[in-house]
């Protein structure tokens, strides 16, 4: 499983390195989301600082949907699903590899976007370790849920519109917990952040386990 996951991760990142969809389409989209929502809130520095975690994670969440669509689209080319199945790619490895590829791209996007919210919105974390831990857990949660629902909607007509409708409500806890953790990272109380980190961790673990167990079945029935 792990060996296949590593092969799939490497393959999906190689495809992204060739196509650069993430760099030229998803990243600018994330920046537009944050900047446009910031415009809507007005020029007040204090309001923007308060809203920065929410704007950041909203941008990340919406961008993750684009990355998931792209990731699922790679597998949807004619003849590929049959070929992968006959090749003997471990379904759990495929799930973990695809989720890891999305997570890696999200981390890169988040690093760049973090620079943006620090420079433009004045976000300052007094406990950066907390913000980083929350970001890593939230990123993995977004990636595993996205990969799972990407496969679920893969064979459906209108996949591009169905996926956001399915996945956004499921990801609401991740958005909420990540925003709360980032707010706590600014001024505390840090004790309250523990609960949100536990929520993010539990979410990531549960959906990882579900994905490993059902991904193969899901792809066969789609």
């Amino acid at each position: 499983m792990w060996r296949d996951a590593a092969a799939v991760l490497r393959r999906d990142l190689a495809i992204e390195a060739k196509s650069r969809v993430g760099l030229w389409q998803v990243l600018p989209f994330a920046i537009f989301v944050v900047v446009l929502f910031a415009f809507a809130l007005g020029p007040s520095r204090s309001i923007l600082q308060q809203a920065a975690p929410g704007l950041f994670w909203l941008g990340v969440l919406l961008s993750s949907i684009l990355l998931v669509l792209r990731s699922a689209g790679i597998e949807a080319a004619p003849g590929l699903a049959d070929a992968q199945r006959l090749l003997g790619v471990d379904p759990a490895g495929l799930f973990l590899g695809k989720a890891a590829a999305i997570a890696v791209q999200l981390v890169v996007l988040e690093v760049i976007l973090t620079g943006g919210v620090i420079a433009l919105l004045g976000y300052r974390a007094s406990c950066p370790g907390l913000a980083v831990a929350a970001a890593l857990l939230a990123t993995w949660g977004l990636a595993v849920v996205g990969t799972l629902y990407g496969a679920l909607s893969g064979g459906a007509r209108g996949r591009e519109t169905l996926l956001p409708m399915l996945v956004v409500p499921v990801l609401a806890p991740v958005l909420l917990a990540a925003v709360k953790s980032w707010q706590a990272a600014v001024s505390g109380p840090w004790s309250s952040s523990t609960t949100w980190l536990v929520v993010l961790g539990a979410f990531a673990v549960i959906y990882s386990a579900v994905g490993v167990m059902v991904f193969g079945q899901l792809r066969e029935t789609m």
Partner: protein
Amino acid sequence: MAALPPPLEAAPAVVLRDVVALAGRFPVLAGASCTVADGEVVAVLGGNGAGKTSLLRTIAGLVPVVAGQAEVLGVALRDGAAPPLGSVGLLGHHPGLFEELSAKANLAFVARIARVDRREVDAVLARVGLEGRVADTALETLSAGQRRRAGLAALLLRRPRLWLLDEPHASFDAAGRRLVDGLVAEAAGAGAAVLLTSHDAAEAASLADVVLTMRGGQVVERALGTRGRGGSDVA
């Protein structure tokens, strides 16, 4: 290359008896029967919609069998069972590779999954005529024939026990067609079972030990091919 006689004691690689297979609710096979022994080449002829591609996909375990007996490489294809992983190679109308990646990168992925030595990738690509810059160019920018050569290379790399080739000569020039014929003979000579479809009766007969004709999801005629016998005695 001389064909190896099928082993006398071993069960055939493929045994289908009165198989009914459904794609959704549509019966794509309606009582199809055939056998393919190890080292044997069987060609399937038939018009569009006769069930040739469905026969290959059913044998590969990609279309569920709902009635009849289907045994592939010792596995009965009922209740979701499929042939042993990695033992069946199917070359369909699409090469089943990632268009954004080069032939070399695609085959490197196949080698990693199939646990094949990656040093074999270059040799296999050279064998199908994809060398130098062509091997490093994204498949989406190559011709249809070159993409099919990449698909063939992926099959060669894996060395499956059962080769399923859906119109393997399609998109190929004369050299490509000779390449396909050579690879089929090589695979069968090495003991693999080969089942291929074709629209060209003469070509199929010269390539195969047995030629089947399909109509309406059934095998309606069985004739001998001329592979390895140098004659043209198709019944």
